[in-house]
């Protein structure tokens, strides 16, 4: 799958409390969660984000809580992909499990600003910024399998139900 989208750039250690604050965790409604996505770091984000946009962040994106509401809020807000230098481990597996595309790459961060447009080939793990072609860190085979199923629940349905 190919994605072309506008960049939203965030820094290091973006925690799950700013991605979706606990005051909104009394619901599992994805659309409701999306309305408050990133609210405590950028109150305009949820209003301005467009389907297909791409989040680019620094180290350990998604540190903190295990709340799956964080990747769900991002996915439901229309964001097509998160690229970070690294992800906190629970956020990483939650994203894979719910089918929110994520890529790990160290270089993109310094090459883009909010509002830039970049192109990504998810299957190849290729990120195109201007005339530069960058490679994302490849996923382990089992993780690829879950991604190909579109998430862990589809995998479970196919194999166990």
């Amino acid at each position, binding site marked *: 799958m190919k994605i072309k989208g506008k960049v939203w750039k965030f820094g290091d250690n973006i925690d799950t409390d700013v991605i979706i604050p606990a005051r909104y965790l009394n619901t599992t409604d994805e659309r409701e969660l999306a309305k408050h996505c990133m609210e405590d770091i950028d109150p305009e984000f949820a209003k301005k984000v467009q389907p297909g946009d791409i989040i680019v962040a620094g180290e350990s994106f998604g540190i903190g809580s295990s709340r799956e509401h964080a990747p*769900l809020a991002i996915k439901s807000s229309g964001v097509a992909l998160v690229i970070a230098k690294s992800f906190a481990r629970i956020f990483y597996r939650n994203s894979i499990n719910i089918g929110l595309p994520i890529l790990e790459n160290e270089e993109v961060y310094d090459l883009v600003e909010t509002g830039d447009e970049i192109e990504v080939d998810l299957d190849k793990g290729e990120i195109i910024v201007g005339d530069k072609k960058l490679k994302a860190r490849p996923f382990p085979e089992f993780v690829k399998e879950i991604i190909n199923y579109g998430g862990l629940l589809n995998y479970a349905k196919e194999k166990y139900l």
Partner: protein
Amino acid sequence: MGQTIAQKIIANHAGVDEVVPGEIHLVDVDFAFGNDITAALSIKQFNEIGATKVFDPNRIGLIPDHYTPNKDIKTAIITQSMRNFARQHGITHHYEVGEVGIEHALLPEKGVVLPGDLIVGADSHTCTYGALGAFSTGVGSTDLTFAWITGKVWLKVPHTIKFVISGELPQWSGGKDIILYIIGKIGVNGANYRVMEFTGDTIKKLNMDNRFTICNMAIEAGAKTGIIEPDEKTIQYVEERKEREEYTVYHSDEDAEYEKVYEFRAEDIVPQVSFPHLPENAKPIYEVEKMDIRIDQVVIGSCTNGRISDLETAARILKGQKVADKVRLLIFPATPAIYKEALMRGYIETFLDAGAVVAPPTCGPCLGGHMGVLAPGERAVSTTNRNFRGRMGHVDSEVYLSNPAVAAASAIAGKIVSPDYILGG
């Protein structure tokens, strides 16, 4: 090549002789639980994909501790869905208000989680039970749903980093200070995807409460879990409580492979205070005291520091003292049993006489959920585990993390101080 405790537990649950860091395995889980934030999502997913049967109703936990007693109608609907799911599937470990406590204090106390277990919980502080010599890690709601259906979870075998702490801790220092100090040294990303194994004579001298505190905050360095090798204290704790007969004690092999080994002197670990907005911003109390940091609220409790020895420490300092004018001191015993024990020992009376409010067992203020949310510009000292921006309330409020002794002393002084400031030292 030898294996670490973590490797041995994973191998045992994957049905193989040994595992290598980096491999991914589908492993059997001994217990899989969620709370009123995360299990709500799992129940919804379970029903949506048409699952009808859980893998084992005795190995699933439903623990409504975050927003209970129900803070609003939406929460009431969530806890209702948990109650209904528990009834429908005959879930034996569903805890109603009255018996519910903070999950990571409750499950060890009830003997539900045991040494050698592989446990997943849809809460990041599930790493707490590593203090029992279990492999226990936080996952998301989808992982939990998957575990409820299949009894399994996918795990990448992590590398282990060893932390050796030797010597005598200074007065008023404990497990909280050890872990804040370590996170201060290695950073919030310092053990990302890794296991943190804690060892050394200082750790062996600590009681179980302090060991739980250390493992509880392994996630704040990004770790998959923290682990402490079981010893006679662990066995005694477990034997007094265990719900199942069988459990397995694992030890790391002499020639086990560690990615890194850190050695720290306990004498250097004075009480720590972590400044906003990351747990890694740890500073020694004696430096902090000079900064004259005025506070509005103090919280003593949580899955990190709401156990009986934490309350004992707080009571020692608060005995015969008064909370400073305009400071709110909130104390949350982590479980009903801890609450009752604190009552019998007279701590609750001490707290009330000092001007504190003693709340029911709940995660409440730790995550800015309810019962102690901060206003803009307010500042709290808290024995909880995270001080992210807006964690305890308004985005312009601040949280300073400390141990219960520093928190209690600060409540009396109205600013962040060492217990010596109150008691003389």
